[in-house]
């Protein structure tokens, strides 16, 4: 492992690598801090820049954008009560009340420091878990991979928000769109309608850019005409000591931080669920465990730590299934998957053998990126606050132009730009119909994985399904899939019942 670390460090610790980290983290924070923009958008925007870079420089930039993007959301959450990204929704609950009480600088300091700790601890976990998991996964055959794919698909139910049916529908749509093009086993055309461009199917990046970036632009356009200028509360960070809080306050949060990191990491590891869920869920966990739950929401640092440590811990968690199994942990890691694929690298257990330099350069980037995030976010705060005032009517058109470049650059064809538009429109209607878009991506990525392994497995077993239910690993994941689905259905049922009761009262 040490040798691999040295290889990774040699690849990243260069003027170019450090420059990429600083550039990526700074831009990520900008994207995270401006409401309506997100880490996913930042990656969509900068993917075309990575096309011509070497794989390590490209992936360093993307990972740095990810770290900055998730953390940057706390700035607007604390200063304007508008979460910059879904990952910082719970940051508003206590961050903004602290700012109103005149403790804005302290809130920012706490948020930034615990974001840093969350990222760092989850990176350490990633460094130990992912090679171990990859080592196990390398022994997987088609039967096991099929079961893993089915298990991951049941996670769509967990991502469904208010309605499991809608979440599963979204996931099925994703899997269906992934069947378009040449079938990878028998080379049979499916749903190509005679078009030669459809034969290679829809590339993942235009789908992601469309579904998340373009749909977001259309959603923001709905309110753009009435958008008022963002007016952040002024915070004096010039005259504060350190990060604005005492060592005693820091140590008082140690268990809160550890639990939050653990929860964030765990949620991040589950395929398809990221920081957006982690921060809200963990806020509830910490509040329920607290000796003074009534104080949550009034401006206490406990709530802030719960949100920021967990959402950043989800970064390392989300990278575990991506690197070890090739399954993205959230939408941003789905973008990373696209970025790696463009560079000719297939995430999964083989990556730990064939591209060990890339894997360890990701680890090094995460460590250096979190340090860069701590320093840049705190000391460059004034600049980021000023950027909150950039008008949306300049930002949105510019983002769209970058998305077009990104889509066109993949294969140098306008077809991919039309694909972006198609999925953008779809994402917009999904939003209007309250159908979650994340399961779509999961279905789009995991659907082909399930199909290939099922059909390949049947080729090995000469048409028998028995090995799928006799392989211990496959059985483990299939049983896990049943439990996960049942759990999601039962929790949804209970939630609906609770809502009905509260409505009738």
């Amino acid at each position, binding site marked *: 492992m040490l040798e691999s670390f040295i290889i990774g460090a040699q690849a990243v610790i260069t003027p170019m690598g450090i420059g990429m980290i600083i550039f990526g983290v700074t831009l990520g924070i900008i994207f995270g801090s401006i409401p309506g923009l997100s880490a996913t958008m930042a990656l969509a925007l900068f993917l075309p820049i990575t096309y011509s870079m070497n794989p390590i420089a490209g992936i360093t930039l993307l990972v740095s954008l990810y770290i900055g993007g998730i953390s940057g959301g706390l700035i607007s959450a604390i200063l304007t009560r508008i979460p910059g990204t879904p990952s910082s929704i719970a940051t508003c609950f206590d961050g903004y009340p602290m700012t109103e009480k005149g403790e804005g600088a302290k809130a920012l300091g706490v948020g930034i420091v615990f974001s840093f700790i969350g990222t760092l601890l989850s990176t350490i976990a990633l460094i130990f878990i992912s090679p171990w998991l990859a080592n196990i996964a390398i022994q997987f055959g088609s039967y096991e991979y099929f079961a893993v794919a089915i298990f991951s698909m049941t996670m769509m139910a967990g991502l469904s928000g208010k309605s499991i049916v809608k979440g599963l529908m979204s996931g*099925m749509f994703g899997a269906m769109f992934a069947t378009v093009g040449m079938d990878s086993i028998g080379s049979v055309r499916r749903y190509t309608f005679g078009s030669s461009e459809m034969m290679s199917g829809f590339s993942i990046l235009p789908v992601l850019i469309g579904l998340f970036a373009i749909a977001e632009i259309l959603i923001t356009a709905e309110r753009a005409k009435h958008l008022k200028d963002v007016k952040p509360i002024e915070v004096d960070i010039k005259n504060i000591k350190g990060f604005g809080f005492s060592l005693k306050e820091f140590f008082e949060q140690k268990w809160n931080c550890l639990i939050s990191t653990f929860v964030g990491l765990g949620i991040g590891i589950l395929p398809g669920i990221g920081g957006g869920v982690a921060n809200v869920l963990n806020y509830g966990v910490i509040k329920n465990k607290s000796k003074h739950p009534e104080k949550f929401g009034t401006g206490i640092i406990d709530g802030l730590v719960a949100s920021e440590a967990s959402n950043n811990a989800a970064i390392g968690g989300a990278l575990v299934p991506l690197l070890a199994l090739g399954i993205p942990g959230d939408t941003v890691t789905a973008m990373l998957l696209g970025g790696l694929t463009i560079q000719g690298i297939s995430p999964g257990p083989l990556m730990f053998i064939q591209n060990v330099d890339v894997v360890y350069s990701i680890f090094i980037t995460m460590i250096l990126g979190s340090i860069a995030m701590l320093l840049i976010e705190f000391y460059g705060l004034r600049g980021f606050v000023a950027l909150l005032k950039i008008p949306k009517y300049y930002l949105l058109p510019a983002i769209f132009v970058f998305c077009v470049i990104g889509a066109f650059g993949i294969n140098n064809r306008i077809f991919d730009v039309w694909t972006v538009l198609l999925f953008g429109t779809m994402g917009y209607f999904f939003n209007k119909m309250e159908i979650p878009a994340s399961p779509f991506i999961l279905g789009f990525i995991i659907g082909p994985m399930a199909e290939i392994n099922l059909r390949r497995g049947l080729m090995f077993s000469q048409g028998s399904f028995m090995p799928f239910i006799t392989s211990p690993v496959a059985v483990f994941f299939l049983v896990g899939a049943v439990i996960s689905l049942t759990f999601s259905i039962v929790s949804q049922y209970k939630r609906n019942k609770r809502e009905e009761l509260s409505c009738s009262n």
Partner: protein
Amino acid sequence: MNLKGIVKYKELLIGMVVGLCAIAYLIGSMFIRRTTIVALGAEFMPQVYGFILLGLSALQVIVGINAAKKYEPKKEPTDSTEKPDNKSVFITFGLILLYVASMKILGYTISSILFLFSLTYVLTPVGKKKNYRTMIIFSVVLPLITSYLFRNVMHLGLPIGFLGI
């Protein structure tokens, strides 16, 4: 059906539209060429997905019927700023369509200049004075810089129009 009707039957309509999509997809799966190379043909998974989606749409129809029965109209926001501005969305979408369609003819740079200016114009908030000078500078400079950067520095292809730019 008026807007209130659509809102009342929204969940039901979603179920029906998704059901139609599933049926269309299943019909499409019948045109996939059958092969005997592997135990399961290329049409197998599309059929599985199609039937699952059909089942889900049926569930959604049931959810929709129940939701329509329990439907209680919500108070519409009186403040116009709270209502979604569909006109802006349609214009934005139209401009995006025009932009992509014109890119092959006009090329990246010119179509981007026109697109950026038009969309900035459309999205400028009501009551905000339009600063044409900034809008023009922004619309011209961004495509020129990106075009130079991506073509010459990053060697990435961008659409070239009839003017050769």
